[in-house]
């Protein structure tokens, strides 16, 4: 249940919105062993979705090799300053989190 807020930065210039997102997640690979030698089960984000003005502007499928506390950058057209970008992720434990940022 360890979800912490994302940091989303969305900036518009010349009609293109650049989005940079940091998410807090352990992204456990399922390969690592703990101090007692037991394998720590995989626990990672599987899907990321981004919407703006009710339109999906980005989505991704991830495996465990995306780094811990994932970083993502993408850019899209068709939005203006003041519009909102929403990012949602869901992980292998079906935990999910959505955060929103205003385009600046």
């Amino acid at each position, binding site marked *: 249940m360890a979800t912490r*807020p994302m940091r989303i930065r969305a900036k518009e210039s010349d009609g293109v919105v650049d989005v940079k997102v940091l998410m807090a997640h352990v992204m456990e690979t399922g390969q690592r062993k703990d101090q007692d030698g037991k394998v*720590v089960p995989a626990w990672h984000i599987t899907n990321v979705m981004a919407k703006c003005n009710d339109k999906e502007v980005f989505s991704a499928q991830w495996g465990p090799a995306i780094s811990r506390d994932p970083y993502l950058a993408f850019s899209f057209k068709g939005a203006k300053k003041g519009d909102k970008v929403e990012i949602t992720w869901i992980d292998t434990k079906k935990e999910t989190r959505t955060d929103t940022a205003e385009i600046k």
Partner: protein
Amino acid sequence: MLRQLKKKLPGAIAFLLIASATGSGSAIAQSADSTQEGIDDYRQMLSDGGNPGDLLVDTGKELWQEKKGPKNVSLQACDLGLGPGVVKGAYAQMPRFFKDADKVMDVETRILYCMETVQGINPKDITPTVFSKSGEISTDWEAIVAYVASESAGIAMAAPQNHEAEKAAYERGQKIFFHRSGPYDFSCATCHGAADKRIRLQNLPDLLNAKDAQQAYTTWPGYRVSQGVVRTMQWRLQDCFRQQRLPKLKFASQASIDLLTFLAVKAKEGKMAAPGIKR
């Protein structure tokens, strides 16, 4: 040529290309310089993307404001040296002498003291869990310290040297810095007392040099990429001593306060930039 490339390319990718351009092509054996350039480029890419340590700052702020302990009060009544409730700029003026405790305290020792005196929590219930263990997420402690440090961002280091106890802490800290002992004969100065040194590929700040000392001190607490958590200065010292083959430095111990006083004064005038991002 690289500069031109940078100009033509938009957005996030431009500076990244510089890195690949410097070394793309043949697999010539790397000279020490090109290795260093490669590492510098890697670090630049990392810092541009954003520091996951920032994610923890928000959590730390909530924890700072949360009512807790037998007295059910928040840490907002804690005096970090600039008056009760003042967090802004406090980190940059510590360690300092506190009259109520009759003692010089670094930030972490002081927060522990506040949890005890303000919130009524027994420090023994806190100290065993301050640092996250391998594979875990950052602890509440690491979040709180990251928050307090972030509230000094951009503010110049000015750890005071007015009270007799502050001067004495500096003196002892200096002696501890040079104290060689243990089977490896290491002191802090072994790795941090000369310019332009590297261990493996890590640059070792020369903590006797103002510029290096500022750069090093002001970027702790830092997000350790290799561990995926934010680490604090008390952790940094404890882990250095571990690798010096010495016993375990006690959290908030007098030696840690003395050494931190020495380092903070050496970093005088450096602008705080924590949480930083570290290997």
